[in-house]
């Protein structure tokens, strides 16, 4: 792909992703007209020249690395060898949440016919999330508040303005649904609903009941519903590509799914003590928040003081007095509520993210679902048996039956070698996570991460490289994530580790596949790697 700036216009020259003939695809030159993404990566959309149909450039830009990568490498999708076509995806899908009052206006359901034979006349009120996305239609509000007397009466009395929706003043369920309209896994109930939204926009307005007009997938509740069965008949991976097997959400951007299955939400009886999105987050930086607005935005738009335990202690004040009695940990990481009850078990945008389903660490859940538990995401060098023992001793948690490997080999080692692509990505990311590095040590990580450099999933390789790059000796390590043959990279990582880590200081635990001399047990490592779960998966992040 070649980029070119023409005055104030940006153009790109690349292989036509929609070419369906034989042989080499022709080169096309298109004007870039839009970008999505601001924190992690930028995705660029170009005008196809056909009505309002847009498509995505084959490469995306990583903000942290200041580097372009092929689009397929940015998502945890089953390897297909090319970026494929995303033509029409913005018009049909992204428009719902990346614009305000978007209307796809496609002449037939997206995907029902070849995209280039469809007509796209998409319209939006505003690009991006604007006021009316969360506050509902604002015309009456704007009209009424032209009157300064009315405005100041409301300012001075603190009264509610009935002309506009204030998510903070809605019931916890309704307030959360304002965010859930985008941050959830949902589908239309039927094709009639899709067609209606296609021409008139999504019917949900803040304050409405979200489920009146769309099906919110919640496997713990509606896995056997007729709508879910209907969806699964046409899209068998609809649930498995977004949820862990127990129904917990595993992809980013769908936090509402986690919230509604959290005890802090579903078991709460007092509206004032019911967790909502706004319990921790704020959409406008609080006036008493001392941090610059850019830092606030980068830190997930948390409310003032909500970076730490205050988010939880506002409803659990009894723990404030002696937190260590509850956590059994010393030091900041082990005493941070988030780290145990919102571990990094969701995936998206080349990183792990905190689960928004509040839970307690459970080895049983790890065994039954494959989802890493909070303890082993920090104590990467420990086995599931170790964790089960600690949880049983401290909290009387039941100790599940564990396999021989689960008792003798570190859980992180097993997940990174035998796990599915999603598990491998989570563990590779955790090995670059500072609290985990502090709890587990880093001297043993490189040989394991090195094994992930030839992972079939580009996204896993890229995350692995990021974590590896932070280890001693790997600062200058060069790696081409898109290379077909990664054997050299694996060997080089191993050689760097051999050179960098003094044999006298090496760890010697068999749980880490290290022998008594600190050497890697290659036979066992290769055996575990052969057992890798190669189930094709495309996480719908």
């Amino acid at each position, binding site marked *: 792909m070649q980029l070119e700036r023409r005055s104030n216009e940006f153009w790109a020259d690349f292989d036509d992703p929609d070419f369906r003939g034989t042989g080499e695809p022709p080169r096309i030159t298109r004007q870039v007209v839009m970008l999505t993404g601001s924190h992690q990566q930028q995705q660029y959309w170009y005008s196809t020249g056909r009505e309002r149909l847009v498509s995505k450039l084959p490469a995306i830009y990583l903000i942290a690395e200041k580097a372009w990568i092929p689009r397929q490498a940015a998502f945890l999708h089953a390897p297909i060898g090319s970026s494929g076509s995303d033509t029409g995806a913005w018009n049909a899908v992204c428009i719902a949440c990346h614009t305000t009052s978007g209307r796809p206006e496609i002449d037939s359901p997206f995907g029902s016919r070849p995209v280039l034979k469809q007509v796209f006349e998409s319209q939006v009120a505003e690009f991006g999330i604007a006021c009316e996305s969360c506050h509902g239609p604002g015309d009456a509000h704007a009209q009424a508040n032209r009157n*300064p007397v009315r405005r*100041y009466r409301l300012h001075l009395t603190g009264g509610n303005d009935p002309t506009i929706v204030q998510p903070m003043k809605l019931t916890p369920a309704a307030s959360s649904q304002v965010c859930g309209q985008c941050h959830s896994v949902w589908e239309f109930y039927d094709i009639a609903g899709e067609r209606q939204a296609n021409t008139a926009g999504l019917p949900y307005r803040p304050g409405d009941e979200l489920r009146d007009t769309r099906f919110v997938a919640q496997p713990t509740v509606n896995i056997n519903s007729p709508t879910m069965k209907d969806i699964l008949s046409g899209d068998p991976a609809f649930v498995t590509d977004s949820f862990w097997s127990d129904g917990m959400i595993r992809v980013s951007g769908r936090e509402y799914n986690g919230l509604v299955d959290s005890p802090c939400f579903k078991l709460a009886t007092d509206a004032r003590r019911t967790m909502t999105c706004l319990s921790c987050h704020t959409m406008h930086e609080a006036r008493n928040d*001392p941090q610059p607005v850019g830092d606030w935005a980068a830190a997930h738009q948390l409310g003032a003081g909500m970076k730490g335990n205050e988010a939880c202690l506002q409803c659990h004040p009894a723990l404030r007095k002696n937190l260590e009695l509850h956590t059994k940990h010393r030091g900041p990481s082990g005493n941070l509520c988030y780290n145990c009850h919102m571990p990094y078990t969701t995936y998206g945008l080349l990183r792990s993210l905190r689960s928004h389903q509040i839970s307690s660490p459970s080895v049983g859940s790890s065994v039954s679902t494959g989802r890493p538990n909070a303890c082993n995401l920090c104590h990467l060098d420990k086995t599931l048996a170790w964790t089960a023992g600690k949880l049983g001793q401290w909290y009387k948690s039941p100790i599940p039956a564990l396999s021989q490997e689960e008792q003798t080999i570190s859980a992180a080692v097993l997940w990174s070698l035998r796990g599915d692509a999603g598990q491998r990505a989570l563990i590779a990311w955790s090995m670059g996570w500072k609290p985990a590095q502090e709890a587990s040590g880093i001297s043993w990580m490189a040989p394991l991460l090195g094994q992930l450099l030839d992972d079939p999933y580009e996204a896993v390789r890229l995350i692995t490289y990021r974590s590896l790059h932070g280890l001693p000796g790997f600062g200058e390590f060069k790696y081409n994530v898109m290379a077909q043959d990664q054997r050299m990279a694996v060997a080089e990582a191993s050689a760097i580790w051999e050179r960098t880590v003094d044999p006298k200081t090496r760890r010697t635990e068999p749980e880490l596949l290290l022998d008594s001399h600190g050497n890697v047990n290659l036979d066992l490592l290769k055996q575990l790697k052969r057992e890798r779960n190669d189930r094709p998966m495309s996480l719908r992040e």
Partner: protein
Amino acid sequence: MPDKVAPHGVDYPIRHLRFGWYSFLAFATLGLVLETLHGFKIRAYLDLTNETRRLMWTLAHAHGTLLSLLNVLFALTLRLFPEVRVRHLKAVSNCLILATLLLPGGFLIAGFVTYGGDPGIGILVVPIGAVLLLIAICMLARGERDPGIPGSRNR
């Protein structure tokens, strides 16, 4: 020297000259304070959410300095144009001084507590100051040539 001293002894040119320069000092100092807030990137002044405060205080500075100079100009007018007879000189003087205090002062106070895009309740004194200013200007504009002042016919 024309008599712009009221029977009870108020010397209006001196009064406005002194008031004008002192208020100029005050509002120029406010400008320096605002520049300092810029210089040290003080969030309470510069953050996006404090845009209304920034506008109010900028307006206070601008109106304050200009009205201060207007007082000086008024004093010079009285002194340099003795043949101009200003009716209700005391009222004009009081209106001008009150306008110089209320108009920028209202902006200043309105910036301390703001309500989103709306300034604080202190903004209510701004229109009062503005009306007093207009009254003063109007009365000044209607000033007449005083036939009793020597030399006025030559002008």
